[in-house]
């Protein structure tokens, strides 16, 4: 009777499986968090519902693919892609903000939705035009290509990498938002835009910067996701719904809410598959529905409205 057997119940899957599944769920959660944090940031500070967030994630993945293919898929090209792809997507984000979004801030909210949705359609065709409809593939760098073993638990190294990168990025972002003047100003704008502007804050500049950071995060998520699976022109659709679920559960505009929401979605999904496969897909929506009924502003959101917290 080994250690593993002592801790397992007969009706639950064995402990190694539970641990593996938990790790799977948390790794997925970290990737979701990276993307959703950008979404919630844009929502909190700019008040814009960025439907195009999934498209930016997709652009990040394709950018990573192009960079890695050009430089011959070794370790160095991977790290370079991881740095360059988010920058490229951030620049695209800057262009969108400067030339398109700016014109609709004064208009009704519906205009912003239409604009970001139009961008979704645009990027979908753009990606197809440039890279073609075939699914693309890049390899994980060799050092992250295998798996790690803790006893009977197997966990792919790449997923472990994402698992570590997630909290690290969260920490960096948190420091920027709460420990720098820039972050304080951004939160001030989220709280009260008119007042901040009256106090001399350069709101347009900060809007652009925050939007760029949000897009950069989506691009980073895409670049990380590229070596994980296949890169397809329909990647945007697969991620956007889950990102919104995370943001809604966590609280719109709430940074730690995105972290918590992502954890809930990732782990619920993973255990749903293990224990009740037929309804696994629905499980995250059930959680979202419950949260919306009990706390419509999200778990860590502000009842008075979106606030970067």
């Amino acid at each position, binding site marked *: 009777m080994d250690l593993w057997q002592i801790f397992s119940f007969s009706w639950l899957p064995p402990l190694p499986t539970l641990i593996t599944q938990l790790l799977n769920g948390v790794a*997925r959660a970290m990737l979701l968090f990276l993307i959703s944090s950008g979404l919630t940031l844009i929502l909190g500070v700019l008040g814009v519902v960025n439907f195009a967030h999934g498209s930016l994630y997709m652009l990040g993945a394709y950018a990573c693919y192009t960079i890695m293919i050009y430089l011959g898929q070794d370790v160095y090209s991977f790290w370079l892609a991881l740095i360059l792809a988010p920058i490229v997507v951030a620049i695209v984000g800057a262009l969108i903000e400067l030339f398109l979004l700016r014109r609709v801030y004064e208009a009704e909210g519906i205009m912003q939705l239409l604009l970001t949705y139009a961008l979704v359609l645009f990027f979908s065709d753009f990606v197809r035009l440039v890279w073609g409809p*075939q699914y693309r593939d890049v390899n994980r760098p060799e050092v992250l290509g295998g798996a790690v073993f803790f006893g009977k638990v197997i966990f792919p190294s790449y997923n472990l990498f994402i698992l570590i990168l997630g909290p690290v990025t969260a920490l960096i972002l948190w420091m920027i938002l709460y420990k720098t003047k820039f972050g304080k100003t951004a939160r001030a704008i989220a709280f009260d835009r008119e007042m901040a502007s009256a106090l001399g804050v350069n709101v347009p500049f900060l809007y652009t910067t925050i939007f760029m950071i949000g897009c950069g995060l989506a691009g980073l998520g895409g670049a990380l996701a590229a070596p*994980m*699976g296949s890169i*397809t022109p329909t990647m945007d659709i697969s991620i956007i719904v889950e990102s919104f679920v995370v943001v809604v559960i966590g609280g719109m505009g709430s940074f730690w809410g995105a972290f918590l929401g992502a954890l809930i979605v990732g782990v619920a*999904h993973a255990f749903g598959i293990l224990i009740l496969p037929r309804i696994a897909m629905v499980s995250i929506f059930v959680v979202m529905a419950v949260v919306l009924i009990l706390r419509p502003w999200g778990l860590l959101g502000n009842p008075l409205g979106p606030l970067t917290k």
Partner: protein
Amino acid sequence: MKKQGYVKAFICLSILGFFLIGAFAPAEAQTKKETPAKKGPIRIGVIDGYSGMAAVYCDDKLKGCRLYVDEVNAKGGILGRKIELIVRDDELKPDMGVKHLIDLYLEKKVDFCIGGVSSSVLLANSEWCKRNKKLWVAWDARTDKATGALGHRYLVRTLSDTDMYGNAGAQFWAKQKYTKYYTISADYEFGHATVDGFMKYLKRLKPDVQVVGQQWPKLGEIDYTAYITPILQAEPEVLFVGLWGGDAMTLIKQAKPYGLFQKIPQVYIHGSGLSLLAPTGMMMPEGVYMSTNYFFSFLDTPENKAFVQGYKDKYGTVPADYSYLGYVGIKTLLEGIKRAKTTDQEKVIDALEGITVDTPGGPLTTRKYDHQGEMGFYVAITKKSPQFSGFLILEKLDYIPGSRCMMPVEEVKALREKAQEKK
């Protein structure tokens, strides 16, 4: 402020102007075309999913189709008339499919329509064609309902449906010694139909088979790692994979670090051939079972060799299974027109009933009763080849001809009658 207003107005009006010209120009060109020669080209509308998940497969089909049309046109066409293709994108949406059908048949007045990949689009198109008495030739889209319970005169389907290839796959696996099966397939109509078709026949042929688990990831899932753990834990002997395209590729890539292919020696990807092998490349492990309607190296006939060579010359690669489907679909339709000696819908449908067409994959018959093509099925295993450095090839294990895996006519009749009663 005033100047800005004028500039904006000018821009808006000119854009509007371009749209109006664009909308009216074809109409003008059309009226000019209709008056001269009555015998223009034979015009065939091709409606398929060129955007969306199945785009690669549809591109392959169109390539195969164009190859045949060019061959025919080089020899003077059919009935002395050249073939002209008008290609439309249904975006995998039933309303778009029907919209294009209406436009092509009623506005553009094409002679016939062919195409399809999505089963839901097929059913919508089929319904329209039945009511409007126009023919739809389905060269893809596998729901067995289309020629089964909901089949009718105005639909011809050249490739095997989910029931047929479930039957064919089951015939192969029933002969093997394995009894513990696990299935993973996408949670939508086709994903379920493909598993149900296979399991129905497998259980019939080999009653001691147990399904130890099933997973239903969403179509387009990006992360299969959470699905791999329960599969490994159940320790099945055979993993039945109903996923296709990018989904299958993602699963393979993510399963490798877990050592899935070593732990479960029998992984069976049902219903995919070169169209999956080519993009997956060297990432595909050896020893994976697959099944497909066609593979370029399986037949040594002169017809197949000519097809493979012709495709290579035109496109620079060997034909995929979907290239074959496109080629065979259009060939069947054009042969029907040739034999009927007219483009009259009713006469061509009569000619198509029971027609046998020579194809690179062997003779293909379209069954008279339900208009279902008797396309066969190969079960094969992946293998590296010194000739091809970019992807793995298949080694043939078994071939089940269409006639041996089709639902008997009496069963189809019964299904249709039951469907009629419900109405």
